[in-house]
């Protein structure tokens, strides 16, 4: 016994240390995943039998396809706007303007505020009687009616941007800050204006960083739940649709919900692998990495 212990002690210790992770992985991730997959192939409400009906029903239904399209519109729109917002913001923040520490902290606020609270706040702000519309009606000429933001697609995209742009902004900022400033100086001394330096030197160099950051924004937006649940109105992306299958009908349609969840996961994996391939190629900006 002692001989066995001596020869295998390090392996046993490794195994022992791995145990919590393994238990967690199987209990909390693998088993539920497996259950979801199995459930998605069971006829609704039955514990036996196999069927593809849960998938075909959702994918054949125009409403189902609209949910998928909507999810992409919201997450890609939110990601694109996040990039457009992050680049100028990061360019300002890296200049260490007065109070830049405070602004940096402000950028992180959406990450720490619970989505629920954030969504409620946004609904209040952008509502027909919110500050946004009060300002428009009060100060902007030719605006006679409040502008609808809440419960519209563009409003929802706006909320997504507020919630998920920090991922993009932080990675953009960090890749900007890792740039050697003398490269930009070299560009300017060579005769390039600030804009030309930005276009030909800075942007190509930070594009990989921006894209990597925007992947995080995209993933978060794709799986968004609480914000569209509260602020989406009739617009229900995949996560909300899954929830609806369980929460609304009685009895709950677990199999339909599972099928949609699997569809969502597969779409995410496919899209991400395409995206990563694009990012790895340098985002088309040339130059092997």
């Amino acid at each position, binding site marked *: 016994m002692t001989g066995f212990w001596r020869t295998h002690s390090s392996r046993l210790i490794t195994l022992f240390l791995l145990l919590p992770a393994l238990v967690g992985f199987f209990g909390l991730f693998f088993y539920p995943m497996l259950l979801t997959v199995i459930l998605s192939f069971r006829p609704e409400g039955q514990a036996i039998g196999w069927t593809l009906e849960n998938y075909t029903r959702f994918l054949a239904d125009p409403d189902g396809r609209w949910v998928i399209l909507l999810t992409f519109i919201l997450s890609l729109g939110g990601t694109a706007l996040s990039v457009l917002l992050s680049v100028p913001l990061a360019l300002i923040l890296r200049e260490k303007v007065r109070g830049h520490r405070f602004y940096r902290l402000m950028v992180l606020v959406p990450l720490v505020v619970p989505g629920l609270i954030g969504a409620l706040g946004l609904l209040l702000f952008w509502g027909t009687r919110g500050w946004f519309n009060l300002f428009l009606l009060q100060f902007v000429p030719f605006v006679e009616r409040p502008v609808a933001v809440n419960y519209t697609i563009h409003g929802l995209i706006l909320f997504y941007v507020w919630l998920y742009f920090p991922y993009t902004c932080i990675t953009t900022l960090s890749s900007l800050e890792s740039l*050697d400033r*003398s*490269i930009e*100086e*070299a*560009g*300017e*001394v*060579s*005769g*390039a*204006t600030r804009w*030309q330096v930005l276009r*030909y*030197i800075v942007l*190509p*160099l930070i594009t990989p960083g921006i894209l990597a950051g925007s992947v995080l924004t995209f993933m978060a937006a794709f799986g968004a739940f609480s914000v569209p649940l509260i602020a989406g109105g009739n617009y229900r992306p995949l996560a909300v649709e899954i929830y609806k299958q369980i929460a609304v009908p009685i009895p709950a349609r677990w199999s339909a919900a599972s099928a949609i969840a699997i569809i969502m996961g597969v779409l995410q994996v496919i899209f991400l692998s395409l995206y990563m391939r694009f990012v790895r190629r340098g985002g088309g*900006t*040339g*130059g*092997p990495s």
Partner: protein
Amino acid sequence: MTDVMIEFRDVCKRYGTLVANDHLSLAIRKGELMTLLGPSGCGKTTALRCLTGYIRPDEGRIFIDGQDITDVPTHQRELGMVFQNFALFPHMTVQDNVGFPLMIRSLSTTERAERVAQALRLVRLEGYESHYPRQLSGGQQQRVGLARALVYRPKVLLLDEPLSNLDAKLREEMRFEIKEVVTRLEITAVYVTHDQAEALALSDRVAIMNRGRLEQVGTPEEIYEHPRSRFVAEFIGLSNFLEGHVQAVDGDIMVVSVGGLQMRIPALPNAGQGQRVLLFLRPNEVELLRPDDPGGANVFDAQVEKATYLGDTMDYRLTFGQDMTLRVQSDAQRRFGQGAPVRIRFPRVRCWAMTSG
């Protein structure tokens, strides 16, 4: 003056209480290689950044070719610059790096290619057009930097410690290469460095800076042979300093009392009796004699405290007079051991009057 290319006129730049450039006035002639030399923090880099426009002076004006460029934005100044860390564009090939200034100036593709090829030939980098900077060695990268700076034939070439990121051997090689290119193109160049050997080897003239002020401007010979202050003497080459006071003035010779000894040296103008002076001797300008050699003017007895063999030279620390030490270097043919008595002769002594206090 028409032959002045760059002029700093009373340029001041402060960072809070720190004065980086203190009323800097300096004229650099056309076709001249001027080195700004000084320890770190002396303001040489600030002066260079004022030239590029990356720093705006608080006071004073800067002229390039007679034109006041103090308020001209960097990209319109028509400069070429070589950077300490190369500052190549990492996402562009050598061809595109060197061609960047031409691309910005909207030259046609064919003319661009021609001028890039010409610039690469100048720095002996033909055949590397499609390489990326990270595929090149440090020396090659710096040559790309030099080609990029020269490709659009700027009025002025600025070099910011271009050799300090290279290893010692390459540094010496690149030094000659830069000198050759600059001479061949007859371009006005401003070279910033803290390395005195580099400055002496490269420059037509050297401007030595200290704490934001110009200490001395002159040719390498002038700076080395006739340093105008203790700072310059200490910064360029090795030096011995001895303090003394004038005992008597006899025509153009004065007798200085130093540590209990009398030295006869050329008189300072306006030197009077009692004037405190600082004597300055290069270690290789002291003659070492045998203890039985005949005495004479400015010959003193000394003792070897420490002798170090340096291959081609011997490096001695001597004591003489009352607690005076002297560093002397002589060729290694004739050697003295530690503790040996010697005689030293000062064939040449330079000195400055010291303000009292």
